[in-house]
């Protein structure tokens, strides 16, 4: 049977990898730091997928990002998803030529839905992960774009209905409120996914320990959970969390 997935997400900004809390970014280390503390050629065996997002807000340098992506993924034989600031089909091709199998689109979902159609026509819908960032305001999940800086002005329910009409392969929902807090995933978000129940769902934001991973993956509406916390799972942290999840009854592949 199809297993669940534990995804590790890296946030990249001009050569550095970032820690995010409620979408505020703090620099942690460069590629060398990452290789020293995670070494994806080995940790690769503890994760089911690696996501790398270029969150640079000024002076995004896509060629440099692509070079770093290549170096990062050279001996990582797991699925790689990349994204951040995708506005053109050529940008998608650059990422796919640098080790990515899939791309994440977030702001373009709202501003250029035609780009999503264009990517799918050429590369198939399975190549596209639709990423939606939400913040709960007065009891309503409001959607944000541009890495959480711009309010879309639509609720999660509306945006998911829109996504249901687009050729996307997966839906990734992140809670801005929980991001980086380590307080656990916001499973209440799952009440809103009725429009996209035919597409695999990834939930992110708030994972601080193995119990949070188990709580997310044991929910039958969730196909994958993602964590981006660079400090929670250093060394063999991911491998240990994975083992705890498997022992806790989550069906994950054994590598």
């Amino acid at each position, binding site marked *: *049977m*199809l*297993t*669940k*997935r534990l995804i590790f997400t890296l946030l990249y900004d001009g050569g550095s990898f970032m820690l995010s809390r409620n979408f505020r970014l703090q620099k942690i280390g460069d590629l060398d730091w990452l290789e020293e503390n995670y070494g994806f050629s080995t940790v*690769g*065996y503890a994760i*089911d997928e690696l996501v790398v997002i270029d969150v640079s807000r000024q002076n995004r340098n896509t060629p440099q990002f692509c070079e770093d992506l*290549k170096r990062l*993924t*050279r*001996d990582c*034989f*797991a*699925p*790689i998803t990349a994204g951040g600031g995708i506005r053109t089909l050529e940008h998608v091709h650059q990422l*796919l*030529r*640098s*080790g*990515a*199998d*899939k791309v994440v689109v977030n702001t373009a979902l709202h501003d250029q839905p035609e780009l999503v159609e264009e990517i799918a*026509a*050429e*590369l*198939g*819908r*399975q*190549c596209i992960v639709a990423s939606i960032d939400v913040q709960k305001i007065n009891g309503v999940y409001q959607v944000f774009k541009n890495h959480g800086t711009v309010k879309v002005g639509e609720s999660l329910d509306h945006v998911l209905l829109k996504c249901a009409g687009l050729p996307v*392969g*997966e839906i990734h929902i992140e809670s801005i409120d929980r991001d980086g807090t380590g307080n656990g995933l916001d499973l209440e978000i799952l009440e809103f996914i009725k429009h996209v*129940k*035919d*597409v*695999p769902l990834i939930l992110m934001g708030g994972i601080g320990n193995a119990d949070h991973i188990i709580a997310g993956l044991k929910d039958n509406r969730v*196909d*994958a959970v993602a964590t981006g916390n660079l400090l929670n799972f250093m060394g063999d942290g991911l491998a240990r969390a994975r083992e705890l999840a498997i022992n806790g009854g989550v069906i*994950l*592949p*054994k*590598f």
Partner: protein
Amino acid sequence: MADNEVVIIDYGMGNLWSVASAVKFLGFIPVVTSDISIVSSAESLILPGVGSFRRAMQELKSASIDQAIFKSLENPKTKLLGICLGMQLLGVSSTEDGFTDGLGLVKNTVTKLAGSNEVSIKIPHVGFNRVQMPKESKLFDQISIDASFYFVHSYAMQILDDFSKYATTTYGQEFVAAIESGQVFGTQFHPEKSQKSGLKVLENFLR
């Protein structure tokens, strides 16, 4: 060509970098190319690919890569591995975006993954899944029966009752996870994305 060179066919469809990295990791020399003279004289060929079947066939035909693949297989020592869409292209046809003829190197057809009245499925099929392996297989030699492989696809190759060796996976329906038919091999999953077990499948093909 040197014995340890592996030609990876570049026709503008998908992630060649990972396939090349995996080939290199296993101690072979990846040659990523769209040059038909190199393809037609290759003895070890990989046809990767993600995306639209129709678009992929157009690309292969317009660059005459299809003919170069046929020519390379005239050499009985040549072996070819199709990965993901690359495996589907080995079939006779696909119903993706209408109806498109494939390379016809195996007799199977490709159709959209479907659930049944009892089981509804999410499309695409994405993630790690197990496969039912054939007995005495080159690709699955020395691979644990509980190994998982990474799949990401919406269309799938149908199983035939022929002399090919099939590995199968069930997701809504049973479909071809891998095929071995003479010189022609294919995997619906991505061996280059399936950690240790995937690398072993790739190594089994290359050796």
